[in-house]
């Protein structure tokens, strides 16, 4: 669709969550996606595929989603935005809105049927 992100990079250490998020965004939502399980993979994927939006899980195995996001943002030439994925209780959300490129929060569990719609809505709010 016109006005969609060029590509969404999904970062989650849980392969099942990656799979369901890809199904939700690409197959159901018709968005272009690529995926990464670690910060390292995310940096490579971003450099290779040129994503302009990151769907970032906050709580990765042995890594903080926020740190990975900062590394991505520092590495990247060109505009890059982020939507964070938090746990249901969303305890870790404080100050996230001050991160550069922040567009919004999606909380887990999410509804795969409506995820792409939520992402598009956030994408539409970028300055």
């Amino acid at each position: 669709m016109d006005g969609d992100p060029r590509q969404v990079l999904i970062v989650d250490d849980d392969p099942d969550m990656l799979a369901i998020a890809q199904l939700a965004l690409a197959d159901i939502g018709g968005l272009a996606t690529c995926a990464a399980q670690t910060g390292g993979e995310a940096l490579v994927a971003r450099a290779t595929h040129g994503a302009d939006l990151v769907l970032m899980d906050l709580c990765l195995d042995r890594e903080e989603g926020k740190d990975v996001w900062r590394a991505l943002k520092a590495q990247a030439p060109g505009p890059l935005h982020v939507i964070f994925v938090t746990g249901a209780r969303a305890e870790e959300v404080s100050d996230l809105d001050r991160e550069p490129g922040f567009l919004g929060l999606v909380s887990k569990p999410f509804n795969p049927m409506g995820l792409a719609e939520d992402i598009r809505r956030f994408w539409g709010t970028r300055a």
Partner: protein
Amino acid sequence: MSTPSPSPLPGANLLGGRLGNIVQSFHANALLQGDEIDALETRLSADGWREAEDLARLDHLAHKLAGSAGSLGFTTMGRDASALEMIVRLIVRRRGDGETGLGAAERTAQAALLARVLVDRIRSSRPEDSTLDLERLESPGSDGPRIDPKVVVTLGLEPGLLADLSLLDIILVEVETLVDWAGRVPLPPVVAVIDMNFANREPTLIQFLRDLPRETTILAVGGSDTFLWRVRAARLGARTYLPHYDAKDLLDHISRIVGESRMGPARVLILEDDEILATLYTAILTEAGMEAEFLTDPTPILDHLSTFEPDVLISDLHMPGYSGTEVAAAIRHGGQWATLPIVFLSREQDLKLQIAALASGADFFLPKPILPEFLVSVALDRADRSRALRNMTLRDPLTHLYNHTASLDFLDREVTRARRGRTPLSAALIDLDHFKKVNDTQGHHTGDHVIQTLARLMRSRLRMADILGRCGGEEFLIILPNTPMDRAVEVIDDLRRAFHALPIETPNGPLTLSFSAGVTGLPGGVATDEASSLDARSLFKLADAGLYDAKRGGRNRVAAKSF
């Protein structure tokens, strides 16, 4: 419950296959994670939940499952994981503050139970239990069960039996078969009325009804009034069974249930001195769709009861300074809360305390540590019954409008609310003209019919937010929140015209009647001190003075009386 159509989504089958693989993979991984949680729980329970690394790992696993299970359509597993994550996190944080003490053992017992519940849930789950269904494009169950509070479905009932439904603001769907139901009822209804003779012919009915959300109330009718038929009705999950019934009985029951369903989510107040456990219980009930609040100290409970107005109180039996029994007695002393259900949380060793609590009016005991499902079902069940009872005591049996006492309580509350929010509020007092003559010449039966007709008209012409009461005899009080007086006069005058134009059928031919009304109002945005002299009682008196003016002015009219 949409109709299964051949292919609602392009490529749904292809997607369905991929979704199936993802669910399979999630399930296989969940089993492995369940084994790890099992091992962690055993180790942690052996060392008193102290090993930081194990706690961190358990927190991580629970956190991940809480997010993934729900997203993949395993809602209950997600909730169990979420509860475990919460208590582990709180325990870790409290440890960091250097806190130990008596409460610690209770918390770790609760954490251990939640871990075992989650492990059992994972092990007993099957990939096909996932509620994610691309074919039907439904959202997973994470949104909780939804019902349509306006829809009433009848199954196998004589068609047209409930023709006179204008009394209730509902949509009636009459269906003949279960297939018919699936095709015509998009959301589960607020009430399902089932004819028992139909039930006997349809062996799959029990399962079908079980799959409805618990918010749907099942009303069984027909058959005969014997123990056997009553048991059959109970097996269908019927809350009420009416072997012999007529349209009026059914309408009475339906309007009562619809009235309860509009009271919003069940409200639960928790009294538990351990803040970690209180937080956990609150979260469990909130996730199950209830409104829950907690207090860790019983001292302010009376104030809290009147602001929060819970349907049920769940209280610890053991609290520093007070026993749960004393708290229950203190609450029961105030007549207003004499019927509030009280559920006590107690450890099995507290047998003596439990017996004492029974005497002070305990309704139920929940053993500690608490099984989340048990907590949810006990809270919902008690709240349902408490609402049904309260609704019954608040309503006038003839019209199902609020009775005199309830109407005045509502007026009190709305005046307070309007003053706080500086919003306008109006009240109208309505009195039928020459009603005594109707009763004397036509008999009480016709008199009742007139009263019911006016009640029905009021319901159909006024807003949901308006509060309708019958103050006894032929007098009615209408409270119109957020409505300035001039607007209220228009609304009531429209109602007056409509009533006067309505021929009321009686055995002696149609009757034309009228009413008089006094309207008064509290303007919005008044200064607090100016309005503070105006309470519910003076508002009622003003409306009454207006009514007097209307009667003296010749009846069949509306008179305004401003503040």
